[in-house]
């Protein structure tokens, strides 16, 4: 049975480990075997940490034997290569950091270590989390386990693909404009972007600081809830991190959504949406009605402006966040005989095309003479978008939308057209601008067998509500998880 251990959910593995049905070492080996088997086809990992993972698993077994197993003891997880991991190279999928080994752990990495988790490897991603397809990686594109000709979504595509391909039991991603929810939808797994400030960002390589948020991928909503409980909470190293107490998210999964008001924004159902996506979403909404929830039509009138506002705010912050990659203290250096040339060449050689594009856009919108017209305007539109959600949540408890207008697109399809790529995030980006929690769960498949994702958006800190709603839908069993085509 060892070969099947990697297919388990975290909840199942937790119970099995507690009962000593199998060991953490066996579970970790099963994941490493699966990686050996399938990763050459999907390239979900930049670095596989077999040695370290087996050591962590051995330590987990000792704790399990001693009867002091913490929450995630022995659970193998994939870690997006955006998290600083002490002693393990952390590339952010960039040539710039190809050999960078952080001397410190991100806060959430430290928390997972304490919780006994096993880090199976560092997952592929779009370089510096800039992209929607995981094609912008200096280490090659990740492929969708459901169809290797398709993208897994991005930027946390490696994490999503690794979970979908049973290379691990769960994974960490980050979400700045949809980077957890889109790959979750494209790969048919659960992924949650918590409320901004719910989880510490310390040690998470910054893309856009006011939008970035940490979150888990998992095979079920319950697993996502289990992971989130360990991740969330106050961190004295992150000034933007909330001090609110962390609820027991798993306990919120009652299966009961009776009386829940589910808002359906009319702006999210329009031109550009694939009919099969709309059908699946409508079917999911109908399920909720059967479960006793009420559907409420709502309006989020500024939705169409979200992408424009996002590409101002995010790139402006990114242009500063990525200024530290200068070839002086760490990372790539292209030698030159003066520092100015050293910067120019190092940054030209170290960053990929999409990263350069966003740095350029960000520097431009902040530059003298353009600040008001672009940066300030973007910030004001952000206010309007937040206002839309404030008004909507006066009328509903959860907002349900598609995660994306289409299923996973073909590798290479949008690489030549940055703007088309940006538009993939049309339904996810507003949530980041407003700082809200958003859950992506599978709600069907298209005729090509590609997963379709349902997005459940909550009010600030209403993670329990959206997890409960997601879990309730999952319990209906309407969507049986299809084994990935591998």
């Amino acid at each position, binding site marked *: 049975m060892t070969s099947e251990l990697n297919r388990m959910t975290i909840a199942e593995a937790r119970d099995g480990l507690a009962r000593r049905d199998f060991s953490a070492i066996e579970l970790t080996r099963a994941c490493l075997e699966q990686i050996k088997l399938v990763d050459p086809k999907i390239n979900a990992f930049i670095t596989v940490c077999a040695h370290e993972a087996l050591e962590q698993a051995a330590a987990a077994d000792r704790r399990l034997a001693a009867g002091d197993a913490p929450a995630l003891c022995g659970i193998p997880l994939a870690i997006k290569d955006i998290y600083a991991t002490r002693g393990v190279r952390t590339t952010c999928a960039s040539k710039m950091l190809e050999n960078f080994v952080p*001397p410190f752990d991100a806060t959430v990495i430290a928390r997972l270590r304490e919780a006994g988790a096993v880090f199976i490897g560092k997952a592929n991603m779009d370089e510096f989390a800039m992209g929607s397809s995981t094609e912008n990686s200096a280490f090659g594109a990740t492929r969708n386990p459901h169809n290797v000709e398709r993208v897994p979504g991005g930027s946390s595509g490696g994490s999503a693909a690794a979970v979908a391909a049973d290379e691990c039991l769960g994974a960490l991603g980050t979400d700045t404009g949809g980077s957890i929810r889109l790959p979750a939808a494209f790969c048919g797994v659960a992924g949650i972007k918590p409320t901004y400030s719910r989880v510490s960002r310390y040690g998470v390589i910054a893309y856009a*600081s006011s939008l970035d948020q940490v979150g888990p991928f998992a095979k079920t909503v319950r697993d996502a809830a289990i992971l989130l409980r360990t991740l969330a909470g106050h961190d004295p190293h992150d*000034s*933007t991190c909330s001090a609110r107490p962390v609820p027991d998210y798993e306990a919120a999964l009652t299966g009961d959504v009776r009386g829940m008001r589910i808002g359906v924004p009319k702006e999210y159902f329009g031109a550009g949406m694939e009919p099969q996506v709309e059908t699946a979403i409508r079917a999911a909404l109908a399920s909720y009605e059967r479960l006793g929830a009420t559907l409420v039509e709502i309006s989020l009138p500024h939705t169409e402006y979200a992408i424009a506002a996002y590409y101002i705010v995010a790139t402006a912050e990114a242009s*500063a966040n990525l*200024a*530290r990659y200068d070839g002086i*203290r760490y990372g790539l250096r292209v030698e030159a005989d003066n520092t100015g040339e050293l910067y120019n060449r190092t940054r030209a050689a170290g960053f990929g095309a999409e990263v350069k594009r966003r740095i350029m856009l960000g520097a431009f919108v902040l530059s*003298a003479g353009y600040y008001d017209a672009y940066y300030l305007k973007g910030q004001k539109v952000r206010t309007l978008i937040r206002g839309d959600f404030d008004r909507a949540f006066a009328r509903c408890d959860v907002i349900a939308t598609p995660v994306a207008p289409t299923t996973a697109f073909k590798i290479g399809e949008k690489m030549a057209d940055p703007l088309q790529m940006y538009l993939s995030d049309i339904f996810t980006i507003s949530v980041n601008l407003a700082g809200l929690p958003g859950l992506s769960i599978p709600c069907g498949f298209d005729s090509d067998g590609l997963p379709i994702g349902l997005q459940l958006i909550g009010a600030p800190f209403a993670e329990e509500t959206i997890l409960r709603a997601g879990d309730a839908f999952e319990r209906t069993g309407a969507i049986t998880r299809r084994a990935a085509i591998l």
Partner: protein
Amino acid sequence: MSDNAYEAIIGLEVHTHLMTRSKLFCGCSAGFGAGPNENVCPVCMGMPGVLPVLNRHAVELAIRAGLAAHCEIAPESIFDRKSYFYPDLPKGYQISQYELPLCKGGYIELPAHSEGAEPRRIRLTRIHMEEDAGKNIHESGASLVDFNRSGVPLVEIVSEPDIRSADEAGAYLRELRSILRYIEASDGKMEEGGLRCDVNVSVRKRGAAEFGVKTEIKNLNSFRFVEKAIEHEVARQIDILEAGGRIAQETHLWDPVREVTRPMRSKEFANDYRYFPEPDLPPLRVPPDLVEAIKTAMPELPADQRARFVRELGLTAYEAAVLTQDRDLGAYFETMLAAGLKNHRTAANWVMTEVLRVVNEAARPLADAAPLAIESGELLKLVETGAISLNAAKTAFAAMCKSGKGADATVAELGLAQVSDEGAIAAACDQVIAAEAAKVAEYRGGRDKLFGFFVGQVMKAMGGKGNPKVVNEILKRKLSG
């Protein structure tokens, strides 16, 4: 001279380290003198993923500085990112404050150095908080970077263009440093980079309403350089204008060796700093009760101490100004008085001459160079009671500086106590009168000038310890007798 037809318009931007234990945004030591890159961590090295967390004490010191300079303390201020590339700037941006600084407005009042003169007020634009950069060490063919200073808290104190001369700039800087030291916000040590100054200078025809084109001079790390650089720059600008030329708006560096300013070659794009609000730090909110608490705990400021010295101790404005240039000096003076000195001005002059001289000669801080203030006080007390002469006090003081011993012990050890005993003095006088019979006859014959000679002989006979007042009295009596 054409110089008189022009006036200089000068504004100063002073950066000073705040005296915190740890850095502004991380728990590294802010201390000076550690080995290279010892006081660094991922945060102040700008490693990927790190985040800043604000040091409360730095905020309190900045507020103290703001209150001391009569600024308005903003209930909510914002940190911004100031973007530029430089090897000593780890993140590629400096966390500073731009649109909404912590302190706004305010002024520094320059002490009047002569009686009846009006004190000058130099208005401030703002005081804001920011982090320092590291340090580049230039070697032939390469530069080396040490990030120990990276992230050390600074305040930047920006004046309005209210300063009109190099002298006034110097007076402003001295008063500012004095205030910062009084409130223990900064030690103002320029040699350690603890206080740095950028100068904006323009000139205009006297009476003109418009300001001229200004140049900025950077790299000024001593008060003397500031004054010299301003003098040089003002003269340079007047020469250009007189020759029919135009001033270019540019940044100059002060070359302390050749004592000239020269335009900077780099930083041609440095003016577009692309400021925007630092997303990693929420707004800095300062509750009114915190401001009140800081205000209540404020130590006496130099201006207040100055006024008190004049009003209560009868010092001149000049004496009060010198004694309050430095918090330690003012404190030294007041501790001396605590020995029970009645003549305050003698004590003030003692500090201004004897104490300042040893401090300057030793080129060390007051506490190291001079004896304890209370011992200086005791020493002057001995002069007041007539136990020793003022000259003997000076001798004792020099010895005390070296030995660190107390006043009484030193006076005893060196045998400096005056002999006021009339019997001993009379005996010495008789001895001299007997030995110098010829001169006595001359004196009695009307050569009054010889009196000094006799005093000298008596003092010599007494080993210099005779109380001069008593010697005079007795000698006069005996010679006339």
